[in-house]
């Protein structure tokens, strides 16, 4: 909880945007539109969770976008071409994501490659494999059982929303309540020290990348379900969006710092901004400019409040003496 509150400013910024858009467009604050925002950002949120994980551990995972595309395409293909049941195909897709992620981790840990390079290579390889597997064409012909995950609903609550909520809660618990979570922070905080404390640094890192790969695959499945076909160029550039969301949410590129809900808030901030500007019919050139300005202001205000906060803390502790 504390960690969520600590990132209060970006969250307040998000609320501010909500209020602003609700006042300026009567369509913004409608059930349908709000649901849209929560559904359309599902894959970004899920990938951001994985990205936060690798970033907190001191690494980065650039391969998420193309792993999402590859696993989406292969799970769709397993179902459409090989006739496997939807659930089995999806689970195999997730397993593939996990394995690719573990390979990333192994490259980093045993190959001693900088994570940037290892996952960038995987980005290229996975995209190449996707094009190879799909022959550059969308894989369609999915059944309801598959697309349910991307655009179905349970009791009127959209499935993707349920899925990302579960992911966020599960990973938040993992990071704050379990030994593995603490070890991720320790490894990202100082790898050498973590090793001296007897933490299995290599295993922790590999697991982080593997989980990130699996979440990317999940994002790919949702995306495929939502648009009802697996696109070979799906999710390109997703890595940058996820890193942005994570950094907005307070995850450090240098490791050891950040939390899961922060990244979700970051992803929603970007999503709400885009949606609101569309409703206000902002042209697409100015959209990029406004996005940049909002990005800077959100983080700058956050930094400012933090400094004010720590200044006031200091005065308070002075008073208590």
């Amino acid at each position: 909880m504390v960690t969520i509150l600590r990132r209060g400013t970006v969250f307040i910024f998000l609320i501010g945007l909500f209020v602003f858009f609700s006042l300026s467009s009567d369509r913004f604050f409608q059930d349908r539109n709000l649901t849209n925002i929560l559904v359309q950002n599902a894959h970004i949120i899920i990938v951001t969770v994985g990205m936060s994980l690798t970033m907190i551990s001191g690494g980065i995972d650039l391969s998420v976008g193309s792993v999402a595309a590859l696993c989406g395409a292969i799970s769709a293909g397993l179902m459409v071409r090989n006739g496997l049941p939807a659930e089995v195909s999806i689970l195999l897709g997730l397993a593939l994501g996990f394995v690719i992620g573990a390979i990333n981790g192994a490259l980093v840990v045993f190959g001693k490659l900088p994570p940037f390079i290892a996952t960038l290579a995987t980005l290229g390889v996975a995209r190449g494999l996707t094009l190879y597997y799909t022959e550059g064409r969308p894989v369609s012909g999915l059944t309801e059982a598959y697309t349910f995950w991307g655009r179905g609903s349970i009791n009127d609550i959209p499935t993707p929303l349920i899925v990302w909520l579960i992911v966020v809660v599960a990973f938040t618990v993992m990071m704050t309540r379990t030994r593995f979570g603490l070890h991720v922070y320790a490894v990202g905080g100082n790898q050498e020290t973590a090793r001296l404390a007897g933490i299995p640094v290599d295993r922790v890192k590999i697991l982080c990348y593997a989980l990130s790969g699996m979440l990317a695959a999940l994002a790919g499945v949702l995306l495929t379900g939502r648009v009802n076909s697996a696109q070979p160029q799906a999710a390109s550039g997703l890595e940058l969006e996820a890193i942005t969301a994570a950094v907005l949410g307070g995850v450090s590129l240098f490791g050891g710092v950040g939390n899961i809900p922060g990244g979700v808030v970051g992803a929603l901030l970007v999503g709400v901004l885009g949606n609101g500007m569309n409703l206000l019919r902002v042209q697409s050139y100015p959209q990029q400019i406004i996005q940049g300005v909002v990005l800077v202001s959100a983080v700058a205000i956050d930094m400012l409040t933090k400094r004010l906060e720590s200044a006031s803390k200091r005065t308070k502790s002075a008073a208590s003496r």
Partner: protein
Amino acid sequence: MSTSSNSSAPLLEMRAIHKSFPGVQALKDVDLIVHPGEILALLGENGAGKSTLMRILDGVFPPDSGQIIWQGQPVNLRSPHDAQAIGISMIHQEIALIPYLDVGKNIYLGREPRGVVPGMIHWRKLYADASEQLARLGLTIDPRTPVRDLSIAQQQMVEVAKALSLDARLIVMDEPTSSLTDTEVETLFAQMRRLKEQGVSIVFISHRLNEIFTVAERVTVLRDGTLVGSKPVRELTQDELIRMMVGRDVADIYMRDEQDAPAVGTSAPILEVRNLTRGDAIEDISFTLNRGEIVGIAGLVGAGRTELAETLFGVHPPTSGEVLLNGTALRLNSPAQAIRQGIALVTEDRKAQGLFLRMSVGTNITMKLLAKLASFGIIPGGKVKRVGSEFVEKLNIRTPSLGQRVRNLSGGNQQKVVIAKWLTLQPRVLILDEPTRGIDVGAKAEIHRLMRALVAQGVGILMISSELPEVLGVTDRVLVMREGRLVAEFNTRQTSQDEIMTAATGAKTSW
């Protein structure tokens, strides 16, 4: 269990250990024996190989050859995890805490108390246990404080708490006292004796020889990576011990050269501090530093000495008060400005504030000088090399070459690099914050000689040190701080360790 087991089989034997790094043979055929319930001091000059030997024992890296025998069984320790598993706990020389995590998490990192659900951590138990460990060391830190908010000394105490919390058979303490003051050291020693009573063995490394005589039973001495010998402490005098370490006699290192000492009060003031206040860290500090004078600042951990030094150096601007250098008011906005005005600060935390760990020894030493020598921004390569070599020689810095990365030096040698960096600058006022932390006796004497040479040229030196014998040995006057205030001033030659401690603690009695 009792100390009688001393005569029984050794707890640990390290046999014929060899270890070399690129360009350095760190250990050559070294043997080490530790008996159960024994406090063994491991001594040697900076770079002698003490930390390397202990890191091999902790499984940080493997020896090139040699054997480790634990309770009579050969063991193969491939990681600190393995070492922990058989009951070895280690306080590393360089503070090994994760700065962003809090004290409690750091103490139990890697062996967190488990909750009901597998994999979950029992946080309440963790913090309760941590509080208990801290309290046992007389620390009142909240276990939820992030480590980066602690002073170096407090961090060192957290390291101690961490090592003690482990149910270990052998605890290795690599210079745990280097930035502690007497009070904390006493607490630590009390705990060490308690553990010894329980049959735990301790390997204790320190460059403060008086501590060795206080707490250790036996010493093992290394020199240049080889074993010199091992003897019971009571059979040794301090001089004999130094001779074992350096291989030659060293004259009483704290002996003052009377002729060099300036007559107090006769010289002109160089630095005048008037009513200096910064928030609650330092309050209403006034004193004068004369040309050619060494003034010591004593106090307990957290007394605000470091804060004072940093304020004088312009790291944080003061809230009120003024500082005059040679009669003109100083502007204390940034370290760059302080340096331009002739003030230098050797910081207390060498790793975070003093060194560029991934850069070479040469670059680190000459970093300040380069900026000065560069004409039109172009750096004269030859001169840099010359100055670098000169200081490596002067301070006896053990390094295979000027190109060696600083992180590969032993702790004491890193500290020498920090000092060398500032000596190259020839400042008018030199502020030293724990300058001889982790430095061996010989090098310490050399640094003191250099300090005296500087004051002879008219430089004023302000020295913060937690080691009172050192303060008494080299300063002309001693200022004592307590809770951010200046509480006493003594002429060094007319005071005693007890008198200073009384002022620092605010207690009436001495011990």
